[in-house]
């Protein structure tokens, strides 16, 4: 369009400037609390209260909060517990979810529609509503205060979404490929192993979807694993902050210690996170 008038160009420039201003302000609001917590975690008590917006430089700097948070609590253990639960749940969601999704999209059998619907229903009904019975089952299976209780509960609540997304991707894999392998005498397990790499992008999306809620969960750790040896990071930090409510340096440091790993992983994989989420929702 070579005939754009000055007026139109001006309106466009103003429009894109307005967009930038709005997005910039929104980004500041999104980042502000996180930056404020990390910034003040590195300061002395006086600096936290007198100059909350200053950088932790010179006299204002202090790592005493981190010292206290790390010595008065059990951060390394909580962190290891959270990592074990999150990775364990993610692995099982991907494995079991892909097995179910493969079977449901590949084979026609009586009950297929029912099972698909059963998994679909799980996306809409929160698992929390069954908590009282979950506690009893965990007690009966001697799983209370074991990390396996958290893994199994998170796998159960993560499976519906995993099956839903993976099923659609499995259905798109061309039949020629599978049939060629079958003619060569491949078993159905071999076919599954053959098809799995083809749906890798969907597997990545499911991994993202399932990791965040498991890592951040407070409800089930509170109910199933509140023992000293089995606390997760979220529960540990929650109780630590409640206990040291007067020592702001220690509170802010413990919060920062919980934020930083998530922040690092998110920044490293932000491309995958964003494209995974949009890809997942287009499907």
């Amino acid at each position, binding site marked *: 369009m070579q005939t754009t008038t000055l007026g139109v160009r001006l309106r466009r420039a103003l429009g894109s400037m307005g967009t930038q201003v709005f997005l910039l302000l929104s980004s500041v609001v999104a*980042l502000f609390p*996180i930056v404020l917590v990390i910034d003040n975690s590195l300061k002395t008590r006086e600096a936290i209260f007198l100059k909350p917006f200053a950088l932790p430089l010179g006299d204002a700097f202090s790592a005493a909060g981190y010292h206290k948070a790390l010595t008065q609590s059990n951060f390394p253990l909580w962190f290891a517990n959270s990592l074990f639960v999150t990775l364990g749940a993610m692995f099982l969601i991907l494995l079991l979810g892909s*097995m179910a999704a493969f079977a449901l999209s590949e*084979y026609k059998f009586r009950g297929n529609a029912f099972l698909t619907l059963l998994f679909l229903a799980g996306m809409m009904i929160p698992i929390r509503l069954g908590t009282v019975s979950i506690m009893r089952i965990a007690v009966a299976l001697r799983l209370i205060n074991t990390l396996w209780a958290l893994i199994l509960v998170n796998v159960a609540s993560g499976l519906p979404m995993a099956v839903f997304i993976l099923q659609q991707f499995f259905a798109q894999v061309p039949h020629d490929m599978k049939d060629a392998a079958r003619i060569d005498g491949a078993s159905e397990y071999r076919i599954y192993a053959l098809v799995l790499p083809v749906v890798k992008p969907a597997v990545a999306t499911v991994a993202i979807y399932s990791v965040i809620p498991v890592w951040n969960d*407070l409800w089930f750790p509170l109910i199933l694993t509140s023992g000293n040896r089995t606390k997760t990071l979220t529960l540990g930090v929650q109780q630590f*902050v409640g206990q040291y409510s007067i020592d*702001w340096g220690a509170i802010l440091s413990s919060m920062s210690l919980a934020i930083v790993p998530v922040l690092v992983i998110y920044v490293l994989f932000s491309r995958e996170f*964003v494209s995974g989420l949009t890809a997942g929702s287009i499907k």
Partner: protein
Amino acid sequence: MKAIAGERAKRGKPFPTYLFVFLVPPLAVYALFMIIPLFDSLRLSLYKTMGDGSEVFAGLGNFVQLFTSPNFAPRLWGSLKNNCVFFLINTVVQNTIGLVLAVLLSRQRLRLRRLYLTVLFLPTMLSYVIVGFAWKLILSPVWGVSGAILGFFGLGQLLQPWLGMEGPALVAVSLISVWQWIGIPMMLFYAALLVIPNELIEAATVDGVNAWQAFWKIKMPLLLPTIGMVEILTYVGNFNTFDIVYVMQNAVGAPNYSTDLLGTFFYRTFSGYGNLPGDPTMGTTIGSVMFLIILLGVLLYLFGWKRRVRTYEL
């Protein structure tokens, strides 16, 4: 049972073992830790917990007690009302701003698009514990942060201990939830807008349609399925919210139950709080009421919204 693919090879076999191998492990975990507990909880809501801890069948006794007894009814209606306010604020503020952000982010030739998407989605990655405490500290009058910010805009006199005040506390907690979850509607709307072909908008522009009309007449009808999805996700999420209130205002929804939601009421009842002992079966009764509320929303969505909204193939 028979397989479509490789049918010839499989014909005649009584049952394909591989089908069981693929399906039994996932179904076992899903059934044992989700399906069975959900149904078992519905069943338990028909039993009364006696003083000695035994459970006796009581029909709808728990429900009658929940809706009529002075120990439970005020808390039920109170948390239900608060939960409706919480949902309303989330729907209006979170989903509207999420839509506006998505529309802006999907503009052609936008600079820094990926950076904005990454930053705006960041709060959604954090746990309630971090989000709740960070905002609790920021809103605390003990720390000068909110005072300084209001002072900067010349509004210093507005500073109040909002989280300790009955009306404002619920609004504050709702808005903090909005802050945390805005990334979800933003991403879903953004993904839906990406699919709308540019030629469609360009053709309309050539015909003299301005940007405002293009949004309302072209994009909006195409976004309706996504709006429904965002709404139902918000609804289901909001009506079992627990964490943000628990972290910021304790399990009692301080001050004076003004931030008590169905989730905190449910938790308090089955696990016990302070010197009140837990009543597991009464807890499952509240859980069943929440189940019905969520089911009602899901059914309205499936049969009221999804059936009527047209989906276009683009």
